[in-house]
């Protein structure tokens, strides 16, 4: 990629255009912004707050599970807490985390656009998120819900707890997600810089594009499903109520038609982040660019036909179970393609072992472990043994926390200088990364064992001989919690007192680094013309002087 002359002149030190952070510092200039970068930053703050909220719920659950019998809270309180943990982590953190925060910030920069296609809708997406979060949190404060985040009927349509506001919150959050996805698809189609054809697009953009397809096509089905459950609650329509001729399994089909693809909403952007960062820190162009890009689309496509693996023991026919099992395993093939290509990218690269790279390593290990157990769970005969046990919980967390959160942290560290123009403390970064990877293993490896021994999930009490492994898991979760707090502290310090970072501290040849860090409001003085592939480290053209550290 070439920089325009004006951009190069500015980077060389002539009077710089004010960065997006300096362009208006009043509260209103943020709340009323149309700038994709500011919307991204606001999303980032919101999802981090949600993450800590969900994390506190999780730690409280682990504290209760130190004891096999009643401890700290009653059974209803426990049920409420795991529901809140699930709802907050999934709908308020994992779904918007990477697309809405980092996607918003870097996607237009990566494709050489001045903004997303619909900037006003983009801001509206943030307010929809806030409104949905506010309604859901209102429900949590006023009694909470005890259904689990899956809202299975007929329990969810009859329990006396506050399911209704949480369902409405989820409905509105769905809109926010749809709007973001729609915006990204249109942006990628219409606002790519001259010369940037589809097969030159950064792999993060491919990841977000695949995610957006799922967001747009799957989320409306969740919308109608929670809408129907809401109507059941206040008007007794009975569409999912067996007492009125309804079919609760139909609810499960409709719910998982969204919620299984939704795990790819959570993990595809994470894979996109890894595809970018692995190149930047191995200083090599992506190995198997096309394979990585197309496997994202493959996962998005196949992801729509796997939902039945959640219904293996719900009265589905043997043929259906087999078909859904095989379709689910196809996801494993696409994922493996990516994993081999990332490792291929590292092979003979000049690896810079910085904090984001530590998370990349964590990600690869967790994704392989979580993915392989996923393939095992897609095997019907094995799933009948593991169904609704901690084995599933551990598998799910290996993918969601292990893979998605590691990628979120890699993205946070990699793009921190891009977003705020500051450098964080590298030493503390590595300390926190080690704590998190260690703590994560200590938390969830025991849960695989517990599940295999038959401990059911979502139970308030458990037999005493499970206690040792539960204590180990809680100890691990404490380490994990410390790790996240350390990150919060050193990043806050970096924001306030951190050193001014260079324009491209990693020497990365990702396209988002072709403009200043932090970028000016309009991103580029002149729309760049793209002449090379992203992460082409063979040439010495800008952006980014190659510095091997």
């Amino acid at each position, binding site marked *: 990629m070439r920089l325009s002359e004006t951009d190069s002149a500015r980077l060389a030190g002539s009077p710089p255009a004010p960065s997006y952070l300096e362009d208006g510092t009043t509260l209103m200039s943020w709340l009323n912004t149309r700038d994709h970068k500011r919307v991204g930053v606001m999303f980032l703050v919101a999802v981090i707050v949600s993450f800590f909220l969900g994390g506190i719920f999780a730690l409280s659950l682990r504290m209760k599970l130190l004891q096999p019998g009643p401890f700290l809270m009653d059974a209803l309180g426990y049920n409420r807490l795991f529901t809140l943990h699930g709802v907050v982590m999934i709908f308020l953190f994992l779904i918007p985390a990477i697309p809405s925060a980092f996607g918003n910030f870097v996607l237009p920069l990566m494709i050489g656009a001045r903004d997303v296609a619909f900037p006003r809708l983009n801001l509206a997406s943030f307010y929809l998120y806030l409104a949905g979060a506010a309604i859901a949190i209102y429900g949590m404060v006023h009694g909470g819900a005890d259904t689990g985040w899956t809202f299975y009927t007929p329990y969810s349509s009859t329990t006396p707890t506050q399911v209704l506001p949480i369902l409405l919150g989820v409905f509105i959050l769905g809109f926010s997600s749809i709007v973001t996805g729609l915006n990204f698809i249109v942006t990628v*189609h219409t606002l790519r810089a001259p010369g940037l054809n589809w097969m030159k697009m950064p792999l993060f953009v491919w990841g977000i594009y695949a995610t957006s397809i799922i967001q*747009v096509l799957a989320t*409306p089905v969740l919308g109608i499903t929670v809408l129907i459950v809401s109507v059941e609650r206040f008007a007794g329509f009975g569409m999912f109520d067996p007492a009125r001729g309804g079919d609760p399994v139909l609810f499960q089909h409709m719910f998982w038609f969204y919620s299984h693809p939704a795990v790819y909403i959570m993990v595809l952007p994470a894979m996109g982040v890894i595809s970018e960062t692995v190149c930047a820190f191995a200083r090599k162009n992506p190995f198997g660019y096309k394979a990585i890009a197309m496997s994202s689309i493959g996962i998005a496509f196949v992801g729509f036909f796997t939902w039945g693996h959640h219904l293996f023991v719900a009265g589905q026919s043997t043929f259906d179970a087999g078909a859904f099992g095989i379709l689910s395993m196809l996801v494993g093939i696409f994922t493996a393609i990516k994993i081999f290509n990332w490792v291929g990218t590292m092979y003979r690269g000049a690896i810079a072992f910085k904090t984001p790279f530590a998370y990349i390593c964590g990600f690869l290990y967790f994704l392989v472990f979580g993915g392989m157990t996923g393939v095992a769970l897609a095997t019907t005969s094995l799933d009948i043994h593991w169904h609704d046990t901690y084995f599933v919980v551990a598998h799910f967390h290996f993918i969601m926390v292990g893979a998605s959160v590691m990628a979120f942290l890699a993205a946070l560290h990699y793009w921190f200088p891009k977003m705020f123009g500051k450098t964080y403390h590298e030493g503390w970064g590595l300390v926190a990364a080690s704590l998190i990877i260690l703590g994560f293993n200590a938390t969830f490896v025991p849960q695989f064992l517990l599940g295999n021994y038959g401990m059911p999930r979502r139970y308030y009490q458990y037999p005493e001989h499970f206690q040792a492994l539960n204590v180990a898991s809680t100890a691990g979760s404490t380490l994990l919690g410390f790790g996240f707090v350390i990150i919060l502290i050193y990043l806050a310090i970096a924001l306030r007192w951190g050193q001014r970072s260079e324009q491209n501290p990693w020497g990365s040849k990702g396209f988002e680094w072709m403009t200043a860090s932090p970028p000016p409001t309009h991103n580029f003085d002149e729309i760049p013309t793209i002449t090379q592939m992203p992460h082409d480290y063979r040439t010495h053209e800008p952006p980014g002087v190659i510095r091997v550290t």
Partner: protein
Amino acid sequence: MSPEAGLPEGILAHHYSSLERQNEAMRLGMWLFLATEILLFAGLFTGYAVYRYQFPLAFAEGSRHLNITAGTLNTIVLITSSFTVALALHFARIDKPRAAAICIVLTLLFALGFLGIKAVEYIEHFQEHALPGKYYAFEEVNIAGAAMFYTMYFLMTGLHGLHVVAGMSVLSWLLWRTLQGRYSSLYSTGLEMGALYWHLVDLVWIFLYPLLYLI
């Protein structure tokens, strides 16, 4: 002369290189949005299919007790309104904003007519206690699954009715914009988007009508 010359202020956003690009983006965005609407209704259509398969007799019987005259009339009203909204776009494009505005007003009136007829039907159902789920007490149809037919009927027509109201708000806003003189041969994409949405509202009814009233 570039096509951008002579455009009113504020139509071409700063981040697009040309109006053509912006129109393309708006159209793609709208079609994606329409796809989400179809998937929203798809949940209900799936439910309809499942329960029709489960209770074929009750669905046939329930269908026979709907007011087919009202349903047919509403179908005609909505199809005509789709025609008037298309006409509005046509007039805007040949620089006849007043004729366009009149067509939008006509569309709005048809929409109101649709809601009026639907309200009459709803009142009948309430009087007969032909209501969904736990409120069902319709004496004429008393077979297993009859309540489920009315559950599906109210969910589907109710959600469609909400879409009619949403479409009317969009059309009212477009009427105001048309009277301001925003749409012309230079630019009419905003109106086109609204018309597309209205066609979708119409199209959903085209599927609801045979499913609920005819078969």
